[in-house]
């Protein structure tokens, strides 16, 4: 190899080295996902009892609302309670439709003690679920003027 060939070879090698050159930098990204349990209820239902079949207790009233849930845990549940007990002879109940894979307890009478309405809610995000409120009264309840109760729903995360 003469001098010119040597130079040409070195130039080609240098070019190849340059073409293959790559520069790098690194970053460390730290992340986490916390337990998330969210519920929402829409609607302020109104229930009025104003009829009866002669010989029977007054006819119950129903009203609909909706609810939604997001949980990234396993086995979450929904409980409900009201701030003060219902007047004597009146019963307010709630029935929540279960999201996929969960279990609804069906219609449950509400009181100041929390009661389970939906259990086994696992890793889902689902909305537009139905809520049915029902108000029943016995004749012994008499006339009850308009009154309200706030229903507090709580989602308790699973594992």
């Amino acid at each position, binding site marked *: 190899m003469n001098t010119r060939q040597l*130079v040409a070879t*070195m130039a080609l090698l240098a070019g190849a080295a340059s073409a293959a050159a790559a520069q*790098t930098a*690194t970053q460390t*990204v730290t992340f986490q996902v*916390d337990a*998330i349990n969210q519920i*929402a209820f829409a609607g302020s239902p109104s229930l009025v009892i104003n009829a009866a079949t002669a010989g029977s207790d007054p006819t119950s009233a129903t009203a609909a609302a909706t609810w939604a849930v997001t949980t*990234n845990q396993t086995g979450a549940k929904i409980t409900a309670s009201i701030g003060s007990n219902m007047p004597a002879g009146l019963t307010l109940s709630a029935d929540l439709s279960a999201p996929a894979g969960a279990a609804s307890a069906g219609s449950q009478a509400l009181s100041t003690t929390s009661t389970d309405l939906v259990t086994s809610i696992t890793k889902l995000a689902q909305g537009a679920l139905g809520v049915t409120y029902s108000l029943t009264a016995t004749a012994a309840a008499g006339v009850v003027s308009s009154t309200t109760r706030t229903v507090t729903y709580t989602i308790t995360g699973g594992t």
Partner: protein
Amino acid sequence: MGVILTQSRSWLIAALLLTGSRAAIAQTIAVSGNPGLLRINNAVAGSEPIAVTNGSTTYTVTTPAPNRTYKVTAQLNAAMPADVTLTATFAAPTGATSIGPVALDLTARDVVTGIPRNTNSTQGITYELSATVAAGVVTSSSRIVTLTIIRFP
């Protein structure tokens, strides 16, 4: 003959000097540091958890004079947990093109292409962490993102 040999040696020296010069000004990339913790902790009921972003860091690229273009790639050292996605968006220097949001994984993914020669530019990096409810709870974890600047095409 002696004159020709002398000229050839001069050419050789010049070529070596030129080669050394080129190596000294190769393309480079650097970052300003590490982003803060990306933490997902909220959702709107009925919807997937809310993604979080961090745009606190930057990268700086320099490219040499020869008439070539370069690109930046990004890749992770380990796969993300199932149903968790780390996305990066790199702002582009003048004359270059940002690919936009890129989900990062073990493969080197283009994030910026067409970086011209003679570029010395600092641009922003935005990371986004998203997760579905199926991901469950993910304890604090880290991934190393390797950024590489190479000639392209």
